[in-house]
């Protein structure tokens, strides 16, 4: 769960409450499309609702004591309006469909945005429908037009990498008087993939490795034929730098310089290897590798990835990048 992480239960009461919440959540079926009915909408008075109840009581007592028939009328009309407001409030959520769009994978540390579509098949609008990750208290509010739909976005920050469940969402409304909170709990079925957090600042890409099976011995970086580009490395002569690309890189804000590569691409392959990171902690490794993957991708290099359980051949492009990051997320 995001935002407020569950505090460790203290005392038997908190434990009981936690158990109750778990039991309750376990009852909820996982679904990406939730249609709200009487069965899954809950309603309880808010603090303001109790305040209004107290007000009504005082009005009633005053009416009795001063024998004010108009006071009775006022009190009862107010009570009737509040009763009607419960109906309106409940009706705001009842019959509403919530649909969660499949969430995009995200890097750890960045907020994952959940896109939810609200569909209203009724011929009247639904006002002030709010949505939040349960417990976060960060409500996104929208009015759903009559017979139309609205989109809401809520964000959460996953706590770890890997494939994980979307947190429990809450939809609620305080409309129209703020005296009752009508809400529902929703356990979406969708899962979100969380890539490792890219290390910043990351060390430069590792040097290429001799191509397996390539017989040619590695000669010094000569000034031979121009054959490709690679990431700038310390010691590269200035004239090898591809200044056109450098200008573009500077314009976009990254300081990655690119050098002309002469023969290397044929002889050397860029392998991003977990073992080559020199780090023991698997999280730190994944983090560095993710950073390298992004760097290599930005530079337009061919790169391969070697992590326990995965051996991805060097290639490039968005699909390749995605494949690598998924492997890093799940390793």
């Amino acid at each position, binding site marked *: 769960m995001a935002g407020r992480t569950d505090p460790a239960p203290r005392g038997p009461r908190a434990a009981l409450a936690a158990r109750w919440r778990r039991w309750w959540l376990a009852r909820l079926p996982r*679904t990406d*499309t939730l249609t709200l*009915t*009487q069965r899954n909408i809950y309603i309880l008075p808010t603090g*303001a609702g109790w*305040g*209004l109840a107290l*007000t009504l009581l*005082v*009005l009633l*007592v*005053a*009416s*009795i*004591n*001063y*024998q*004010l*028939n*108009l*006071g*009775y*009328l*006022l*009190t*009862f*009309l*107010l*009570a*009737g*309006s*509040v*009763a*009607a*407001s419960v*109906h*309106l409030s409940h009706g705001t959520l009842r019959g509403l469909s919530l649909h969660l769009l499949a969430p995009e994978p995200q890097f750890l540390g960045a907020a994952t945005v959940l896109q939810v579509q609200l569909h209203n098949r009724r011929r009247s609008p639904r*006002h*002030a429908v709010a949505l939040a990750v349960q417990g976060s208290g960060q409500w996104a*509010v*929208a*009015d759903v037009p009559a017979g139309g739909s609205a989109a809401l976005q809520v964000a959460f920050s996953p706590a770890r990498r890997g494939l994980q469940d979307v947190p429990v969402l809450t939809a609620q409304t*305080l*409309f*129209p*008087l*703020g005296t009752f909170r009508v809400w529902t709990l929703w356990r979406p*079925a969708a899962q979100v993939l969380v890539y490792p957090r890219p290390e910043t600042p990351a060390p430069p890409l590792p040097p290429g490795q001799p191509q397996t099976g390539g017989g040619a011995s590695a000669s010094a970086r000569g000034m031979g034929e121009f054959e490709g580009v690679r990431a700038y490395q310390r010691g590269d002569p200035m004239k090898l730098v591809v200044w056109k690309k450098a200008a573009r890189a500077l314009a976009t804000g990254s300081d990655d310089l690119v050098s002309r590569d002469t023969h290397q691409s044929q002889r050397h392959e860029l392998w991003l290897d977990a073992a080559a990171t020199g780090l023991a902690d698997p999280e730190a490794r994944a983090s560095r590798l993710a950073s390298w993957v992004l760097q290599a991708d930005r530079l337009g290099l061919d790169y391969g990835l070697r992590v326990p359980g995965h051996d991805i051949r060097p290639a490039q492009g968005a699909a390749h990048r995605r494949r690598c990051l998924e492997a890093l997320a799940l390793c």
Partner: protein
Amino acid sequence: MSARAAQLPRETRDTLFLLLVVACCLAPLAAHLPLWGVAMAGAMLGWRAWLAWRGRPLPGRWVTAVLLAAAVALTAATHRTVLGYEAGVTLITLLLALKTLELRARRDAMVVFFLGFFTLLANFFFSQSLPTAAAMLLALLGLLTALVNAHLPVGRPPLAASMRIAARMALLGAPVMVALFLLFPRLAPLWGVPADSASGRSGLSGQMSVGSVAELALDDSVAFRVRFAPPGGQAPPQSRLYFRGPVLSAFDGRDWYALPQAEDRGLVPWARPTPPELRVQGEPLAYELTLESTRRPWLLTLDAVRERPEMPEGYGAAMTPELQWQASRAPSSVLRYRAQSYLDFSHGPLAETRALDTYRQLPQGYDPRTHALAQQMLQQAGGSPEALMQAALARLRTGGYRYTLEPGMYGTHTADEFWFERKEGFCEHIASAFVILLRSAGVPARIVTGYQGGQVNSVDGYWTVRQSDAHAWAEVWLQGRGWVRVDPTGSVAPDRIGLPLRLQAPRTGFGNAMGLVISPTALQRLRAVWEAVDNRWNQWVLNYTQGRQMNLLKRLGVHSPSWQDLVQLLGLLTALAAAAGAAWAAWQRQRQDPWQRLLGTARQRLARAGLPLPAHLPPRGMAEAARAHFGEEAAAPAARWLLHVEQARYASQPRRALAQLQRELRRLDWPRRP
């Protein structure tokens, strides 16, 4: 200005609207607040509006704290308490105005709303008339609109939309209101209505100050309404319509008091009023009287009532020794009762008693010339009190005395001034001078206040008696006859008694303006209609008492109704409403698309057999999943049916196959748990 108003930021617009609503809640209270309270509340609201308009920041906490302290201190200084409802009303008004100055979060807005509801109720302490009710209904709708508006956080919703929602809520709530109003048991006051503090009311006051009133303001509001039985029954002539109120028997030279109060003041320590000793003749005249709120225990009755008036539940009534009827407690609202009056009556002791000396008392040192006049007139009358009385009336008729509503201020010797110098005044001056003259000659006399006359409403046949019909007359004790009613005002201004004087429209700017375009008769007609409506309001809403609740139950067939029956009936209605709600909910569930329901059943059956399927899977997908899970053979019937569903659903006439499919579904051989 209006263009600017349409483009105001939402926050500003909402604040200004709420301030307007608050001002509407408070405006009717202004007449009942101390002047500084009105000024302070107005200034605070104006200040807040200016801040909102200019987009300035709100004042700091210490400013509101200082203002609060000032408000409480001034209230305490004005009312000498901060408890009790007059001080309470002042305080709540100021609190409401003050709270708008720290209207930041939604919680503050809520407090403003709650205080707003209290001020609505506070208005009813002073008036429960139909116009007040209408104004407060509007204010309530305004409060609800502002509340709804506060809970529409998205964009800049038009106020009209919030207003529609508020009106809809009120409309939906109206049946609840009616049911509760009719059936909620009417309880007795929990801790007693505070004794009257509504001073300055027009009409009767229980005390009569002769010299200090320079001009009598005619108050055209209704004092009470009378319906003679049988409905529309014959009323006695106007000249006999004397409605008895407080009897004023003690005089301190300037003011007249009723006796018990005089006792409290130590004026007449040994005085005990003479007993009523009522003797009646002829048939009684039955009527029903609806008294507007007086907050005094007086019951006005047509002279003279022998049997206890039929009072609403919770009220007692008793006759004072001076023939006045009093309720056991002051009604805070409209009070209706039935009474029977004997127009032919006499009362009081027939022979001289010691108690009659009370009515000969006069303070020392006042009105020396009247005293001399009385002695002289008594001599001329040969010592006969009755002849003296006639002579005094003759003097009023022929001595150049004039009836006027603007007599100017009187000095110390009010009777002297009246008899010898000014020779003008209204009923109070005339009656007071008359009684002082008789007492100076040793004849027991007293002043009776009440109402004289009335006007029949051509629309509903009710008689209306107004505050401007308030009157004061005299009663003189004569040997062998008891107390005799004498109306000296009649001698000065015969028109005042027995003739409907008040045919003019209310003397307001509006009335005058109306008079220019509408003929006086049409105006009178309009007024009659309005008063009939107002009377209905009184009869049906304000006078809905425990007694009428019980009548309602009787009409519903309960033999000996009690408040438990009311509660039971309320419970029954609640249960019925709940059952209706449940039925509606069930119907809503049934209203699902029949195809969806068909597939839903199939999904349930498959899930029970151990194959949960997502809701979005089409029938073909379900069939495939079933085949894969249960095996070709076991799943065959179900799969066939599912494909049939798919086929029928997209056929040109899908409805046709529906019944057939539903029938098949019931007989279908579902796969079992493998």
